[in-house]
């Protein structure tokens, strides 16, 4: 499965038109799923926004001589890969669009294993989920801004309405707390 995926991606990166057509056909649904899942967190469900992400994913994949496309090594299935890329793209588009908007709740309503997820994985992911839930929403927001969105301390201070010099100690504390919860 992955060898075929890898071959398809390589042909796409080489600029083969037929390969690209097949790539688009195969990945369209997965991209839409990833985009839908991410946009739903921002309470956005209109087809236009989803389509916008869908298009943007292809732009991201082909940017700088297919830089992102070339990172695919065939270690996972193609659909899953583009789904996660779509999820990231949707998140970044929404955050760029309205950086001051309230941050969405990122944890799913319930922690359910993904299809094909092994028991060991499930155990670890459930622990992650529980750990985040045990933290205060403020701490989770802080971690997300700092580590997931990789924002500067100044941005974080502005976003959370804190003094700049309180970001660092709070971040260290929140990170330590998460670590302890995962022990």
């Amino acid at each position: 499965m992955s060898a075929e995926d890898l071959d398809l991606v390589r042909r796409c990166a080489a600029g083969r038109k037929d390969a690209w057509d097949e790539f688009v056909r195969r990945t369209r649904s997965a991209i839409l799923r990833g985009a839908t899942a991410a946009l739903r967190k921002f309470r956005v469900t209109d087809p236009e926004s989803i389509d916008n992400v869908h298009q943007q994913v292809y732009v991201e994949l082909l940017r700088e001589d297919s830089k992102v496309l070339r990172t695919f090594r065939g270690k996972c299935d193609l659909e899953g890969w583009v789904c996660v890329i779509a999820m990231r793209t949707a998140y970044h588009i929404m955050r760029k669009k309205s950086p001051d908007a309230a941050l969405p709740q990122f944890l799913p309503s319930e922690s359910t294993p993904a299809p094909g997820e092994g028991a060991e994985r499930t155990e670890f992911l459930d622990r992650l989920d529980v750990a985040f839930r045990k933290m205060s929403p403020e701490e989770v927001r802080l971690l997300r801004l700092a580590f997931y969105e990789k924002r500067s301390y100044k941005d974080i201070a502005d976003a959370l309405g804190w003094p700049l010099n309180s970001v660092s100690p709070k971040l260290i504390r929140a990170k330590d707390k998460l670590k302890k919860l995962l022990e």
Partner: protein
Amino acid sequence: MECLTPEQVVAYLRTGNGEGRAVEAHARECPGCAMELLLAREALRELGAARAARPATSRKILLLRKQSSWVPWTAAAAVLFAAILIFAITVSKPSGTTVVKSPPKRTEVEPKAPDPVPPKPEPKLVIEQPEPEPPKPKPEEPPKVVVLPPKPEPPKPEPRKPEPPAPPDPKPEPKKPDTTPTVVQRFAVAKVTHQVGGAAALVGKTLLAGDTVATGRGEYVAANYDGFGSLYFRENSRVQLDVEGAITLHEGEFFGKVDSGRRLAPVKTPAGEVQIQAELFGIQTTKTATEVSVAEGQVAVGPTVAKGPQMLVLRPGKAPELKPVEPGFAGWIPDKLAAKRFGGWIEGEAFAPLQGFRVMEWDESSQRRAAVQVADQGTAVLKAPLPFKGKHALWLRVRQYVNKPVVIGVHINGQHIADRKLEGEERKPPWRWEGPFQFTADRLELTVVALSRTPLQQDERRSFPVVLDAALVTSDLKFVPERVPEEARAFELILEEPGK
């Protein structure tokens, strides 16, 4: 290890490749990647669900392509065979009989049913139906009838339409997620665990999202709010419960005990929304004001934050006010944790023997009056609101260490209720209940006065004539607390069904 790439994330979630440990170790150190794993898990779950719900188109296509390269001759033979077969069938049937008959029947049916909206574009609808996704079809009941009549021609060109223009036509896809939120479902959000008073038996009843708990006069209800904790509703209250911790207080009062780590959505009240970040809080609303009391943690209305122990008072058209929390305000709740943090009724250990009675030494509501009493006369003061207004009976649990008669005076809400003479007993006297002292109110402010003049020596606690360690309030006027075990918690508020 650098931050996880999408490929590593998917590989970790989908398969057990060798990097599993490394990914987990990295996620422990990097909260961003930990979040990414959880988010990706959710997205992949959705993707998996979509795959399961749909024929695997892409995989099918690959499979077909493979086969065709393998067995072209077999495929050609099959096509030839099919052509011969079709030809044979066509020849063997002289003229359209049953096939012809059945369509006319249906065409007759169709005009007869003009009730449904003018659905002339049926052929198109028909085409959409066989699609894997169930997009628009609204509650049209007879799709099967509609499908066949128009023409026996197979509507082939149409269904294939969405397939060829491969790239950007996500038309059917976004529709599916759209339809999901439109499904109206009412989730179970809470379960009634305790009830006093009220005509209908509610204990064990499941409350669905959007349900309103309405307590009548003399009714008190406790419920377990799924995933959030416990809620206690006082009499004459109306509170609406929804999913995701959304609560609307229309009138009355309730007390919330939120599980550690959980957070309710802002509580809606007539005076505005209140953000609550506390494990224990009480909220009461009247026509003129809304009061939110918090022991620890904080509650906020806009920029005004009340940090426990404090009370936030909201009045329409006025800025929120901060006040000290009223001790014992949550005493109507038979919840030990709430009582401990808010005052009211607490366990015996926290009571100090003072002036012949054990009193809540930290209870500011008593204003330490007991402590300033003259040495030969003691007063015990307790304050607690009750769940509802009505007739109540008060019982006091006492013990005498000195074998001599003692007289106590019982005052409730400033009114003298009774003087009671307690006969002394020899040796180890057991705890016993004295009462009932009846009163009508929705709160209890109890003052017990030792009327006997028994001079005490300093630090001579054993010579106290009477020790009072528990008070029991019940709305069952016939209730006699004989069977209450000795180890019963001191000053525990015990509520019983009101007498009929």
